[in-house]
């Protein structure tokens, strides 16, 4: 006799179901959006929170890590806005247009919306959902199809975020900084953004996620459409508060003859899952997908990437570095898929972990799935301690231990940071690495 065993729902899953039932009628968006939410929630509810027996979540058992689901964060009050205003900018004085979200909600009075470059449109996602913006109808939930449970949850509960459109041929001079500032109490945020960069346009996006030392949860998703011949740089800084749970998803569809770079810098959060589903739809695009993760204490950060080559002749370079101290753990799961039509694909993926402590753990899982026969693909993975011979060489020149270690760690991480085209941001990130290392003591 076969009996289907349905596992009991966890407290967090029950709470999420209750939340959805309670707020579904209040969430922004009309009929089609409501239907999208409904179907996403059903998909989530059927499987529950992903756990270690789901291959894609093997190393980040969200069901176990997320004991409870925090209530939805309230819209920011005056105090929250004041706090956000006072918070130091994670990209320092890099010239940019800052668009601020507090507790997941767009805050126009903290955002710089003046003198928009020609062809640039910025709106709040909540407003766009409510009025049924054509971009929403055209793209939302459709950029890259995925049945990922965390993404489904985001779609079901998405509140606010950014809707950005860059018209064909437009050049956005100032980098666009989407600054997400988390709640300062136990609450949850479901942010959703859609960015459409049309043919031949140029833009740089910086996405930062920061927060206080509170027990909050963030589920953020960004859908990105990069048109043919467009040139787009995306830099994401995950610097959440020390107790935060952060799950974020990038869904990107890249056109032909485009240039696309994305870089994720992860230093904050108790548990971080950063997932990227990137599809190359057009021929001969050149892309860099990179990241650096610096962890300490009991931090856990998971980078999961699928680079899906559908079109012919694209080049992608994937490079991920992690530096692990204390009892921290970094996970990298990277898969390059080369579809039958994607001949002449040139893809190389490397992941490297530097373990500064005996108790730190790195799990690297690079994969290639190739269905074409004329491609150049490769992957590599390393994990190890600092090279004692190099340390001795530096010390023999008078450089003290900690400084010698810092020099080697900076050079290790620097190799990934070098891939960022914006010189000012490269500097800011190298300074952030140095600051992180000097905090090691």
């Amino acid at each position, binding site marked *: 006799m076969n009996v289907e065993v349905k596992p009991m729902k966890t407290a967090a899953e029950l709470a999420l179901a209750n939340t959805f039932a309670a707020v579904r009628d209040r969430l922004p968006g009309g009929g089609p959006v409501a239907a999208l939410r409904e179907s996403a929630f059903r998909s989530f509810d059927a499987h529950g929170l992903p756990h270690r027996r789901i291959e894609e979540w093997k190393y980040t058992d969200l069901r176990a890590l997320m004991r409870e689901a925090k209530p939805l964060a309230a819209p920011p009050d005056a105090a929250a806005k004041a706090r956000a205003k006072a918070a130091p900018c994670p990209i320092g004085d890099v010239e940019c247009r800052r668009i601020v979200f507090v507790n997941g909600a767009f805050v126009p009075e903290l955002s710089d919306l003046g003198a928009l470059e020609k062809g640039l449109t910025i709106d709040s996602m909540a407003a766009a959902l409510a009025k049924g913006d054509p971009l929403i109808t055209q793209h939302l939930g459709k950029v890259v199809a995925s049945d990922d449970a965390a993404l489904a949850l985001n779609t079901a509960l998405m509140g606010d975020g950014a809707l950005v459109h860059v018209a064909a041929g437009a050049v956005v001079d100032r980098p666009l900084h989407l600054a997400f500032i988390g709640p300062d109490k136990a609450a949850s945020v479901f942010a959703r953004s859609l960015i459409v960069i049309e043919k031949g346009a140029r833009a740089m996006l910086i996405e930062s996620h920061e927060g206080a030392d509170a027990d909050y949860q963030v589920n953020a998703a960004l859908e990105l459409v990069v048109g043919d011949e467009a040139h787009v740089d995306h830099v994401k800084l995950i610097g959440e508060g020390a107790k935060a749970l952060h799950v974020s998803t990038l869904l990107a569809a890249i056109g032909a003859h485009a240039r696309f770079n994305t870089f994720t810098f992860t230093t904050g959060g108790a548990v971080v899952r950063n997932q990227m589903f990137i599809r190359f739809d057009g021929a001969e695009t050149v892309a860099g997908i990179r990241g650096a993760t610096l962890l300490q204490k009991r931090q856990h950060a998971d980078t999961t990437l699928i680079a899906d080559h559908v079109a012919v002749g694209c080049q992608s370079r994937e490079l991920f570095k992690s530096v692990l101290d204390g009892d921290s753990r970094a996970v990298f799961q990277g898969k390059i898929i080369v579809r039958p039509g994607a001949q002449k694909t040139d893809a190389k993926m490397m992941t490297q972990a530097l373990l500064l402590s005996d108790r730190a753990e790195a799990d690297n899982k690079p994969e290639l799935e190739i269905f074409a026969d004329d491609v150049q693909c490769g992957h590599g993975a390393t994990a190890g301690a600092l090279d004692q011979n190099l340390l001795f*060489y530096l*010390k*023999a*020149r*008078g*450089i003290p231990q900690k400084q010698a270690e810092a020099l080697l760690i900076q050079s290790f991480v620097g*190799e990934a940071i070098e891939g960022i085209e914006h010189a000012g941001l490269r500097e800011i990130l190298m300074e952030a690495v140095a600051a992180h290392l000097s905090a090691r003591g």
Partner: protein
Amino acid sequence: MALLEIKNLHAEVDGKKILNGIDLTVEKGQLHAIMGPNGSGKSTLSYVLAGKPGYTVTEGEVLLDGENLLAMEPDERAAKGVFLAFQYPLEIPGVASMTFLRTALNAQRKRRGQPELSTPEFIKRVREVAGKLEIEQEMLRRAVNVGFSGGEKKRNEILQMTLLEPRLAILDETDSGLDIDALRVVADGVNRQRAPERSMIVITHYQRLLNYIVPDVVHVLSKGRVVKTGGKDLAHELEARGYAQYQDEAAA
């Protein structure tokens, strides 16, 4: 007081005894050559003096200006003026040569209570020294030793020595892998650094280098001990007759 006193030094690596009671005294301003066959312990001695991890001193002592050198970390030794020119200089990908030189120089100056060099001062100083050693500016823009030929790496060691102005420079087979022109450039670089306040230990397998860098004292090392000490003529004698006789002596 002698600058360096090595007394009955015994050391082992991975449980294998390499140095078996070395006695050696270097006065201020002297240049000592240490010669010996492969495996006699020359490089081990240089690593023990510089403080390389994994080299265990089991007996004896080493004094620098009367201070216990062996109790110091490698970076403290460097700050006290000990410099080891590596036989095989390491490549450090990602660390720019200038950053490396500057960090080292300023770390040592800081320890000695000297102010850091300003950027223009530092760059001027490096260019001056690099020029004399025929090191291209382009090389200094690269990561430390990355993509350097064997000879370029050795010249880079002498560049570091010149900038750091040590009181005790130990040159471990600096001549190995150099052609005759490069040897001359390196030897000139070393000779320019000879000074009344600076002592040097030049470790070499061949007498050839000592035609260019003339030692005050020559020691022959065999099986981890100094088996013969003499003047510069000892090097010529070794060249003519080889190390065989000393290997037998050490065994006896």
